[in-house]
Structures are given as structure tokens and as C-alpha cells.
């Protein structure tokens, strides 16, 4: 259970948002909306604990996330604009290292399987450097398959993915939610995920026409 109350964030001398409150229970998805530069990325990084909030509080199961420290990060996966994978390692190596650092070490077999599921068959053994944009993203997203964290924070996970991969990712997200996980998500693309438990949050201006 993630509770946010009175959250405010300042970047440079710009107040991005303030007095933001919401909560997210097991089995819920939060879809963040907002125009470019409205502060979606900033909010997500704040929720992870990467950026210190200027005001307000974020609680996980009733405790402040800063007090919880590593107990909280054990429960969170964050995939941001940057893939966080090493160009010189192969997909398999990347996945194994990432998940070991996430606290969920896996066998080589499992890594191969996860990458195959992500549609990287035949590319598992190439250094990530030579992969295409979308293939790199897939390697990063494969972490979701081998991770047992409760809360997924995904910043525009669908960028660079082709239609098939978008569909697959949506299905993973759906499964995670149905199993009682939580997801916070932002995307500028149209997505269809079970509408029932989706909460929406709008940052910045409401009018869609305003660029």
C-alpha cells in the first residue's frame, strides 16, 4: 500500500507540482498523464526515493520510505528513460547482473527463457551495443519477468517497442496486477489494460491542445 500525501517537488526554481496526494492499493494501476515537462519523470523518481521531496510524505505500508530504506527498495522495480543496461554485456549477462542486484538472483537458464519470452531469441548472446533501440528496451524490460517486487514504476516503457512487444508488455502488466501487484505507469501512447483498477492522475494542464 503506497500512500502519498501533500507531495511537492521543485526543480531549479520551477515548482513542478505541489500538494499531491493519492494512494495505491494492491492490484491497482496508476496511469500518470501530463504533457512533456509536466513532471511525470520527476514524480516517479521521487516515488522511488531517488529525488528528495521538497515537501510532503511518501509512505509504504504505513512507514516513510526514507525510514524503510532498503526494505522499500527491495519491493520496487524502476525502469526509467534510461535502460540501465551495459552496452558491452550480452542480454543474458545484463539480465543476470540486474536481477542479482535487485535481490532476485537467477540461473542462466532462466535468463535465456526470459529473454526468449521478450522476443529476443537469437539475440541473447550479442553485446547489447549492436542491438536496435527496441531490442535494448526489451532487455531492460525482461527484468520484470524475473522479479518478484510488488511495485513496478515504469516510465514510458512502451517507447521504441513494436506492436507485438507492446501487446506482450501489456499482458505482463495485466498479470502482475491480477496477482495483487501495483504498477505506476506513464506513456503518451494509447494503451489498453484492464480498465477496472486503473487510477488516473493528471499533472500539469488539463487541456489536451496545449503544447
Amino acid at each position, binding site marked *: 500500500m503506497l500512500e502519498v500525501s501533500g507531495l511537492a517537488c521543485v526543480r531549479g526554481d520551477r515548482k513542478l507540482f505541489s500538494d499531491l496526494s493519492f494512494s495505491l492499493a494492491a492490484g491497482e494501476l496508476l496511469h500518470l498523464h501530463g504533457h512533456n515537462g509536466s513532471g511525470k519523470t520527476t514524480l516517479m523518481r521521487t516515488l522511488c526515493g531517488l529525488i528528495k521531496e521538497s515537501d510532503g510524505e511518501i509512505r509504504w505500508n504505513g512507514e516513510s520510505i526514507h525510514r524503510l530504506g532498503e526494505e522499500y527498495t527491495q519491493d520496487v522495480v524502476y525502469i526509467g528513460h534510461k535502460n540501465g543496461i551495459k552496452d558491452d554485456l550480452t542480454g543474458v549477462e545484463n539480465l543476470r547482473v540486474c536481477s542479482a542486484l535487485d*535481490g532476485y538472483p537467477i540461473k542462466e537458464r532462466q535468463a535465456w527463457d526470459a529473454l526468449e519470452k521478450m522476443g529476443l531469441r537469437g539475440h541473447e548472446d550479442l553485446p547489447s551495443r549492436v542491438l536496435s533501440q527496441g531490442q535494448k528496451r526489451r532487455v531492460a524490460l525482461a527484468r520484470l519477468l524475473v522479479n518478484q517486487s510488488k511495485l513496478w514504476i515504469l516510465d514510458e516503457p512502451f517507447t521504441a517497442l513494436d506492436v507485438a512487444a507492446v501487446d506482450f508488455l501489456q499482458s505482463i502488466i495485466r498479470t502482475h496486477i491480477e496477482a495483487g501487484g501495483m504498477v505506476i505507469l506513464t506513456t503518451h501512447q494509447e494503451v489498453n489494460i484492464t480498465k477496472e483498477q486503473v487510477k488516473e492522475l493528471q499533472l500539469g494542464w488539463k487541456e489536451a491542445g496545449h503544447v
Partner: protein
Amino acid sequence: MFNAFRTLVGRDLLLAMRRRSDLFTTLFFFVIVVSLFPLGIGPELNTLRLIAPGVFWVAALLASMLALERLFAIDYEDGALEQMLLAPQPLFVLVLAKVTAHWLVTGLPLVLMAPLLGLQYDMANDALLAMVISLLLGTPALSLIGAIGAALTLGLRGGGVLVSLLVLPLYIPVLIFGSGSVEATASGLGGQGHLLMLGAILILSLLFAPLAASAALRISAE
């Protein structure tokens, strides 16, 4: 926790192997600096023997300082650092892992190479020994102290100089004791005192540097 430490050291060593020549950058730099001097100064052995401890230690210090820039920068750029910050392990363990790998890749080869190069300068055996020991104690301390500076300047404009400016004041004692120990040994005074000081510096920095560097990383990653 130990598992994460091992994974990270393993990853960084693997990466160093992959970009094979990363292994050699620092070493090569050290070798160049040390070997260019005879070219620039002239080949008299007396002069060379006189300046050898200074040249070696300055070269080691510079090599170590230059390698710092890459300590966290690549992880910062490709987003792996964010993931480290979000790992369910105490950050200082991961920092220690990164520094360990960094030293194994940049510091150790240099220590092993030093005696060979020392012959070029016609150094005596006991001075060579003192040199190796002093480098063995000094270079890890340099890496540890440097990690703080590298973490503080992450992503800043002109990180390069800044890191040197921040780190240099803390490096100079290591330089003085390091080259001092070799000189003292070469001149027959015995370098134990200097080496003890180096050891003390190493232990202190082992205790405090990872903590300070991880605090700095948290600040810089905002």
C-alpha cells in the same frame, strides 16, 4: 549482501575484460609517463636515480586520478547507477565493490609493473621493494579517496578538473609519504615510518570513504 558485492565486482571485471583495453589504459598511461622522462630529460643514470621515486609516485597519482572519472560516470550515463541506488543492499557495499573492481583493474597492474620500470631507472633492490610496498598500500587508498570526489562531481559540467581539484588535497599526503618511503629507503634511512603512515591512511579511508562516497552518490543522483 556479499552476493551483491561479488556480482558487482564480477560485472565490472567482466566489463573491463570486454573493453579489453580499459584494463590497460591506466597501466599504459603510467608506463608512458615513466618512460617519457628519460626521453625528455636525457639518459644520465645519476639524475634518473635521483628523480625516480618522485616520477613513479607522481605518475601513479596521475594515473589513478585520471581513472577516477570513469569510476561512476558510465553507470551514471546508462542508468545503471539509478538501479544501484534502488538495490536492496546498503549502498556503501556496492560502492566498495565498485572501488575494489576499479583498483583491481587500474591500480594492481600498475603495482606489478613498477619494479620492471624501476630497472629502467637503475634503482637499487631495496628501493624497488619499498616502491612496490608503498604502491600496494597507497594506490587502494587513492582509489578510495578518489571515489568521494568522483561521486561528488558526477554529471557536473567539467567534472574532470573538478574531481582533480577536490581530490588533490587529499592525495598529496599519500604522495609525500609514498615517495618519501622510497627516498628514505634509497638513502639508507629506512622507510618503515612512512610505510606505517601509508597503512594508517589506507585503513582510515577503507573505513570512511565508502560511506562518504555513497552519501555523495545519493546527493548527485537527484
